[in-house]
Each structure stands twice: as C-alpha cells, then as structure tokens.
C-alpha cells in the first residue's frame, strides 16, 4: 500500500513537471499580429496534463470574430509546441468561442493545413502572412531598441553605425535579433542594427530618419492594437491578461 501511494506521488510530480513544461512551451507561442506570447496575452484559458500524458489546452481570443487566419496559426503553433514537450503523449488544443472554432480545431487536429481546413475559402497556406507580420515585428523592434538609445543621447548618425554586436544589451535587442533570425535576415554580431525588413539591406544614415518614423508608427500601431485586444478580452472573460490559470 505504501508502495502504491509513493508511486502515485511520483506520477503526480512528473505530471506537474510536464504541465509546467507545457505552460512554458505555450509561452513561446505568439500572436503573430501582436508579437506577444499567448500566455502573456491571457489567451490560454486552461492548460492541463493527465497522468497518461494527454495535454489539454483551451485557447480563447478577445472576440468571436477575431481574424481566422491568425487564430489558426496560434492553434497550430500551440499544437506543435505542446507535442514537442517530453512526456506529452497526446495534445488536444481547443479554440473556444470563435466563429470558426470547428474548422480550426478540426483542421489543426488533423494537421490538414489552412487551405483544406477552410475548403474553398483560402488560396494558400499562411507562411506569407506570418512573414509579413514578422517583418512588422522587426520594424517595431527597431523602435523599441532605438528609443532608449536616443533618449540616452545617441544621435541618429550614431545609430546608423551600430551593429547588433555593439548595441548595448537588452531584452528588446535579443527579441529583435530572434525575429530577424526567424525571417532569415542578418542576425549576427557584425550585422547592422538597422536594416530594411523586406530586403535585409542596411539602412543608411540618409534613410534613417524616415525609417525610424516608420518603426515608431508600427510600434504604436501594434501596441494600440494589443491594448484594445487586452481590453476586449477583459470585457469578454473578466480576466486581466498575463495571469496563469490555476
């Protein structure tokens, strides 16, 4: 009997560890439009792991009509991330309360892709869309990195000379570098801090003022959008985003 209890406790500990790893994996799944993790945004309504290794994740979004393409990417990315966690035998990812919940949940579970999941309504998979929004994230990230540098007294001309390697370290710089690497853009220490996110070419001193203006408005747009999304999520579910469900 004692042995049985001990075995049960071991299993429970292991399950708890897998559950923590699943939560952590979900933290690396991002809303492609907002470039923030679904856990930070409060989009994970529940996350459970059973003793047999089944991970059940329920996602929720700020509105019933959130764009179905981005919703599909988040559910598919969550499925990939959770399935890759050691100890997870099966992943059940469910998007709740959305007009296209059935098409998305069924399509992702069957690994059918976007075109087959939305039969007749989509022309292509979502790689192009994802790339477009990663490029916006790179542009917005340039503002996040440069604004404190300018406030600290660097000039616009100084910025044109900076490389990723000699820019002062910050979480925002790491994030920018990661997004660039994801896109296959130059992301090494010797590469310029400021590049055209479409081509990867360095932004020269002449083009820099306009580039920074574009970076700023892109960041304002993404931040304002995220602010509205957080507000709507609160109105819909009464939760302040960023809290891990217990």
């Amino acid at each position, binding site marked *: 009997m004692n042995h049985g209890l001990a075995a049960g406790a071991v299993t429970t500990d292991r399950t708890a560890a897998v559950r923590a790893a699943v939560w952590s994996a979900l933290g690396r799944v991002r809303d492609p439009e907002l470039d923030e993790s679904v856990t930070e945004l409060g989009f994970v309504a529940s996350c459970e792991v059973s003793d047999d290794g089944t991970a059940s994740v329920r996602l929720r979004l700020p509105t*019933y009509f959130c764009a179905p393409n981005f919703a599909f990417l988040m559910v598919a990315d969550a499925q990939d991330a959770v399935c890759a966690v050691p100890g997870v035998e099966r992943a059940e990812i469910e998007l709740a309360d959305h007009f296209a919940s059935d098409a998305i949940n069924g399509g992702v579970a069957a690994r059918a892709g976007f075109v087959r999941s*939305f039969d007749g309504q989509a*022309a292509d*998979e979502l790689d192009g*869309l994802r790339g477009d929004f990663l490029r916006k994230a790179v542009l917005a990230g340039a503002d996040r990195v440069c604004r404190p540098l300018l406030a600290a007294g660097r000039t616009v001309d100084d910025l044109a000379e900076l490389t990723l390697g000699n820019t002062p370290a910050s979480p925002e710089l790491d994030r920018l570098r990661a997004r660039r690497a994801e896109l296959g853009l130059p992301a090494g220490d010797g590469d310029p801090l400021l590049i055209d996110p479409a081509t990867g070419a360095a932004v020269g001193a002449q083009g820099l003022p306009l580039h920074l203006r574009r970076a700023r408005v892109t960041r*304002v747009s993404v931040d304002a959008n995220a602010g509205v999304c957080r507000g709507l999520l609160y*109105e819909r579910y009464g939760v302040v985003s960023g809290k891990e469900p217990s």
Partner: protein
Amino acid sequence: MYEKDGEKYFVVDGHTHFWDASPANWVPGQEQYAKGWIECFHAYQGLGPPETHWSIEQFQKYSEEKMMRHLFDEGHVDVAIFQPTYLKQWYTTGFNTTETNAALAAKHPGKFVVNASWDPRAGDDGLRELQEKVERYGCKGVKLYTAEWRGESRGWSLKDPESARYLEKCQELGVRNIHVHKGPTIWPLDKDAFDVADVDFAATNFPELNFIVEHVGLPRIEDFCFMATQEPNVYAGLAVVVGGLMHARPRFFAKVMGELMFWLGEDKMIFGADYAIWEPRWQVEGFVDWQMPDDEEFSDYSKFSVEAKKKILGLNAARLYDIEVPAEGGLAETAESAGPAGDTPLAAPVSV
C-alpha cells in the same frame, strides 16, 4: 453647438448607426453570428467610461427617443452622418440600413446625413439599387464593409474589377465620399483582411473621390498612415480611436493621435462617435479638454490647437459633405485660409 472656454465647436459626428440586433431580427440558422456580432460590439462599449455602459438587452435595440437624446440633447452633436451596415445574412431586416436610417432622418430635418452602401458582388442589380437609393435619399457618401459575408463568400476587395464599376457609378452620381471599413475576413482567407492596399489602389484610380478609412485602418494604423501620406484624397475616420482608446488607453490614444497628426495632418482627421457603441457626449467633451501630454515619451508629437480640434470635430466633415456651418462655428479668417497643416513626412527632414 458645443461651447467650452469661450470657443464654439460645430460637431459633425461622422459615424453613427440606428441598428436592430435584437433576437427577433436574427436570421434562423445564423443566430450564432448575429449574437456574436452584437456581443463583440458590446465588448467595445466596455472600453468607454463605466457610467456610459448599457446592458446587452438595451444595446441590441434602442429607441429613436434615446438616440436623439444621446446625440443631440446631451451629446453636443450638430449633424450626424449615418453609416449603414447591412449584414442581411445574419439580420432579417438588416442590421443598420439606409432605409431605416433615412426614415429616422426624415423626421428630424437637418440633423442627419444619410449614406448608402454597396457590395460589388451584387452585380448589375446592386448598381441599380445604388442609383435608386442615391436619388431617393440624396446620398453624398457610401459606407463599405469589405468583410461582409454573402453566401459562402467571406468578403471582397476594392481591387476587384466589379468594385471599379461601382466607384464609377458613385462618381457619375456625385457620391464623393467613400467610407471604407475593414473587418476580419476577406477572400481569400489567407490574406490579411485588414490590409488597406486596395484603398490605396482605388484612391489612386479615382482621384475625384474622397476615401475615408474608418477606424483609421485599425489594426493596421501603420499601413494606413504610409498609404494616406501619399494619397491626397484619403482621410482618417476616428471612430473607435476616440471611443476605444481615449478613456481605456490614454497613452496609446495620445500616440495614435500624434501619429495621425504627423502623417496626415489636422485637415484629414474626421471625428465619429460610433454610436451606439459609444455615446458622443464624453467623447466630444473629453477630446475638447484633451491635450498631448508633456512627458518625454510624447515629445515627438505636436500639441493640438483649438483650430485643429474644431476641424477634427466637425469642420472637415462639413467640408466633405457641404454641410453649412454657422458663422460662429467656423474658424477665424487667418486659420481658415492656411494651407494643409503639418509637414510633409516623406519630403521633410525629420527629427526623432
């Protein structure tokens, strides 16, 4: 006319609705969408001040008396522009139609401007209906919703060849103001439904028409700003910007307004309360009282003058719609005769 600190503001609410989203109007079999739509709108109302929130039942359908009170008796609105949204796939008699808007407008002469709407998927019949509506109601503008569902279709684009026929018809009929509202779906679904490139395309091809991008292209403010700065006939409709951000996210509100002022300027911004999502009163009073904060974070952005606020709250829309402005609501001669405000972002040197 709203008066504050000795200044008079002629208020044109550029975006209002008279809708019926009550369950009795839900199309059988489509209830989930009809319910989802109005619940989504209702959540937006939650971004306004708590004392202006309504119950979902009140929000689904409201009376003429209530609307007239909220806009004109309490809301400081002088003239309101109806922006129809049909959604007949979900709502039996339509959600908010030109016909319903016009019936209300007819009872209150001088208070409303009635806009039409069109959908390029309606083909020749739609063109005929557009002409009939324009002739019957004297429309000078249309409201377009590119994410509207129609049968299996989840939306359309202003780049569609059929759209050009409708824009030509607008030009022929003297319908100069094209309000475009983007939504979450389009054909094909893998494209970004909020992309404003099709507005850019249409604005270039139809330079005599004005394109007012509603909700300033939210959530694509950056794309909208890049586009609008290159197209002289593109305007920013501020519905949702004021209602959704000024109270709930004041810092982002300031930044969005600062960006719009920089990229478009004060002659291109048009206030809209988006009733019944938000009542106009707190928006008008709040915006007149509002100023760009002094903090370092906002140092890039210009302050908003009284003249700029007068233009945004009413004079710009009055110009587009030939609405007569009482003399005391206009601008002083010097300000009125000034050219477009702000610098030209693509040409001017920029300080960061």
